[in-house]
């Protein structure tokens, strides 16, 4: 059986302590800059806060993974190198990276610290993953959310590193690591600035009938009726009118969250080493509820008991959940 480590989100020091106390095997977090893909206002850690967080986590046997999972624009790689230097000095247990240049710097400078390949690298074939392992010493790959469990099982047989998969949270997987939709409207990049639909460009407009429009950079990307559940204001989950669908339809993705709680036994059997919970932008309340639920579920499965999965639907986007490609390629 695989280790089935639980990898949990921490957007703030308080959320990190919450995740650790709720049973995380590892927490992942980032600095307050473009070096990570949740570069949101008021979120993330200063170096001083990260030092305290590492001490808190290590004292309780929990690992700290530092997300450096964005792509440095030309001429700006120093910010990523400095972040790696700071993380190494503070004693993080692994770096989560997407960019080959960042991976190369860390592999050469800090060969004793584990490298995890971010989902943002979109490495989905054994050949691609082996390349990262052989050239940068990657110890774990976070797989894109586009693979079925049989495909994951097959990949596991053909690669020399551990596998991590997402099990809960945001299901924005269109072209992981390569999406430029936000960039088209706002000029800021999900992959280089770490901001998908930056809050400074988002506006919610309430109509007299109780409907609500989500706008990004002045463009309406969805309109929710008075009784309709809402989703994040991301272009990939927007609802658009077209000549053949004048009523409006979800052209790319839908407001829905991934929830693989019922597939955990199969994922463990397939050789997945670690389960990742998405949501560094979410609250302590979310972290506490989701981590507790999956901690208990994983422990039950490891002990040979049937997992009693908590109902987490209230925490899902649009209050809808899916097993996505893990169940079938035709999940939509």
């Amino acid at each position: 059986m695989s280790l089935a480590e639980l990898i949990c989100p921490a957007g703030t020091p308080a959320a990190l302590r919450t995740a650790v106390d709720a049973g995380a095997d590892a927490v992942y977090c980032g600095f307050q800059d473009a070096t990570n893909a949740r570069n949101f206002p008021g979120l993330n850690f200063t170096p001083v806060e990260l030092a305290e967080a590492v001490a808190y986590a290590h004292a309780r046997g929990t690992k700290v993974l530092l997300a450096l999972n964005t792509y440095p624009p030309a001429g700006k790689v120093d910010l990523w190198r400095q972040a790696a230097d700071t993380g190494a000095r503070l004693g993080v247990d692994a770096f989560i990276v997407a960019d080959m240049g960042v991976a190369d710097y860390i592999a050469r400078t800090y060969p004793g610290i584990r490298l995890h390949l971010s989902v943002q690298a979109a490495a989905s074939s054994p050949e691609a993953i082996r390349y990262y392992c052989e050239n940068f010493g990657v110890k774990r790959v976070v797989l894109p959310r586009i693979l079925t469990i049989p495909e994951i099982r097959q990949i596991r047989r053909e690669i020399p590193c551990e596998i991590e998969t997402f099990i809960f949270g945001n299901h924005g997987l269109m072209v992981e690591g390569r999406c430029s939709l936000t960039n088209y409207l706002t000029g800021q990049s999900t992959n280089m600035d770490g901001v998908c639909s930056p809050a400074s460009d988002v506006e919610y407009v309430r109509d007299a009938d109780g409907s609500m429009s989500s706008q990004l950079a002045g463009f309406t990307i969805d309109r929710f009726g008075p009784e309709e559940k809402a989703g994040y204001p991301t272009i990939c989950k927007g609802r658009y009118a077209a000549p053949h669908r004048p009523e409006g339809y979800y052209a790319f993705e839908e407001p829905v969250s991934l929830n693989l709680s019922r597939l955990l036994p199969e994922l463990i059997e397939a050789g997945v080493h670690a389960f990742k919970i998405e949501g560094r932008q979410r609250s302590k309340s979310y972290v506490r509820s989701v981590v507790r639920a999956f901690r208990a579920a994983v422990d039950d499965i490891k002990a040979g008991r049937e997992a009693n999965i908590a109902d987490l639907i209230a925490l899902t986007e649009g209050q809808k959940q899916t097993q996505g490609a893990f169940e079938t390629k035709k999940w939509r």
Partner: protein
Amino acid sequence: MIPTSEPKARLRPGEGAIARLACLVLQPVLTRVVRRVAARHPSLFARLGPHQTTDFLIDPVELPFALHLRPDPQALVFRAVPRDTAPQAGATIRGRFLLLLELIDAEQDGDAAFFSRDLEVSGDTEAVVRLRNALDDMDGSLAEEASAMFGVPGRAVLARLRRAYPDATKPQEYA
């Protein structure tokens, strides 16, 4: 879903006077609470960044007044205001009173409340996100802290408030 009418249109006859009286009575309490919170949690101002001087209107939909917050450490403002005299806000946050209280205390998830339409935000979204993250990084319960400042009567009021509100949006905890 929260009520659909605009705040100023929700005033019924006589409510204006009640709101003004409530604001007068509450003001010394609010001032004491916000000063105490600022003194005990100075790190929250850093997360607010440039929005320390933003005017937030926190609108508990079922109460006869709203709350005006300007989290400027140099000149803190936290006051109850009748809706018809509320200042022009940079950002507005609306929902049931206890939901707003539980969001501050990290007993509820703001994104989930937004998805369910129990929470509504308008104006400067970045300001709202910064305020949410700043409050979420505070340890302990602000509600408990504030009620404890007023001893047994304060705790009794908080307990009564919590009993008075149904809690349909709270995620089910793993038992």
